[in-house]
């Protein structure tokens, strides 16, 4: 992998409007992720031992640090599955950033093994941020919302 190749990859991404590309060849793996501001971040790692791969983070998802204010409540995924913002593809999302929610309101769906599981709010508060993009995979315990308690 040399700089020229990396520049070619960046161009490839721009030409095809890709937000992420990963290439593995002859003992080297390189992954380029396009950040929302348009900059590109790259990670190069030797293949063995393999670095842990973060489950597909797309440009849509903002990974906010856990708290600008330390009282933000993390809503975590109770299971492994796929995160959906709305009940069905054409429906509007359950919540948007800034929405007020009450305890028991449905925030999202995590689909596992063809079953749709509702994730409900445990507190009254305001949606401060959404950490996962629609239709992305989530693991157990992964933060999906940050809620500012009322």
């Amino acid at each position: 992998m040399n700089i020229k190749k990396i520049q070619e990859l960046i161009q490839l991404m721009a030409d095809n409007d890709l937000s992420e590309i990963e290439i593995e060849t002859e003992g080297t793996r390189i992954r380029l992720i396009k950040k929302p501001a348009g900059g590109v971040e790259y990670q190069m790692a030797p293949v063995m031992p393999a670095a842990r791969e973060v489950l597909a983070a797309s440009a849509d998802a903002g990974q906010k640090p856990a708290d600008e204010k330390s009282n933000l409540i993390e809503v975590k995924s109770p299971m492994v599955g796929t995160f959906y913002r709305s009940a069905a593809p054409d429906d509007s999302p359950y919540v948007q950033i800034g929405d007020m929610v009450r305890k028991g309101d449905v925030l999202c769906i995590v689909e596992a093994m063809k079953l749709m599981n509702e994730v409900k709010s445990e507190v009254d508060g305001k949606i401060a941020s959404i950490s996962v993009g629609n239709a992305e995979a989530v693991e157990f315990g992964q933060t999906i919302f940050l809620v500012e308690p009322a």
Partner: protein
Amino acid sequence: MFRKILIANRGEIALRIIRACRELGIRTVAVHSEADESSLHTRFADEAVCIGKAMASSSYLNIPNLISAAEITDVEAIHPGYGFLAEDAHFAEICESCNIVFIGPTPENIRLMGDKMTAKERMVKAGIPVIPGSKGLIESKEAALTEAKKIGYPVIIKASAGGGGKGMRVCHNDVRLIGAFMTAQSEAEAAFGSSAVYMEKYVDSPRHVEFQILADGAGGVVHLGERDCTIQRRHQKLIEESPSIAITGGMRKKMAEAAVHCAETVGYRGAGTVEFLVKGEKFYFMEMNTRIQVEHPVTEMVTGIDLVQAQIKIAAGQKLPYKQKDIRFEGCAIECRINAEDPENDFCPCPGKIESLYVPGGRGIRVDTHVYSGYTIPPFYDSMIAKLISHAPTREEAIRIMLRALDEFVAAPIKTTVDFHRKILMDSDFKNGKISTHYIEKFFPKNEN
């Protein structure tokens, strides 16, 4: 061949499977509980998914989360390792119905051999020697007395759904029998949810010799020799070796044939182990384990065959590329299971941080371990931290190499069973093979078993 496999396990066996996959060019997905966030298998794998809390029921036994992890990572197969769901027929079926290949035997194999009674009945039909015992369950005190008279004392009453030493009672006469029968029933109920018990002749001070089987599901069945696992403490194996010095060439031939016949009779597929109890020149089928076993490296060293890769290839539909005559057996191998336990404190588990680790090396040594310097052993799972395996042309040499390796092994400051293994390997009874499954008791005269 599979493109990607999920390993539904942790610790050293997860590493073992990942290594086999890497060599075969298969991508790997590790799953882990929150407690295993910094476990080595999550670093070695290509991807890692958190599947639950520390408790096994929330994570490593959590079938919905495991299947879901398999789906979101788009794997074609799951390797269950040993323990956890490796012998769960229900899990194997769920994998099948989700179009994920379960790397192991069929659900029917697992069910049949998982029930000790039905497995035994099948072996009787196949003409394989079993321990004399009741034809079915013992359902009343009267039946217990009649059966004991028929079998002849001493007898042992065992839980049909059980294992691991629970729900078992030995008795030597009618006076003790009824009490033993009732206690065994209630222990079985408490441990396994079923009070079903059966009776067998009690074989005193036996040896435990098991045979490794590979079956490709298309008619190809081979045995890969035996492992002697007689050295146990509370039914947990401590040391395993191959070949066994307790069986003659004639016995080996008969037992190997019985093991292969057992696998053929039940239409077995995959890697499996047929366990026998040995007393003098007699051997009896005890049970079949339908999974890869902890002590598989012993067989790998002697035969040169990668058992985990064999499992994967069989699951991918490949036939065995060798016949029985192609299998070579070279030298002697010994394995010591090193646990983070304190032998001077009733083997109390000692989880904690390993500040400095030195893993033995040199000629004839293989070490399978998931621990590293700075690793904190979580308290939620089993205490095994490493398997030390030595291999040499003779048993004496394998013992010498193992003693050297035990001296080299450092896992400070936690307590381990290394010194205990050293004592056993230097003991003359061990060297002469004058041992039985009660051997360990001599090191603890009062309070064992």
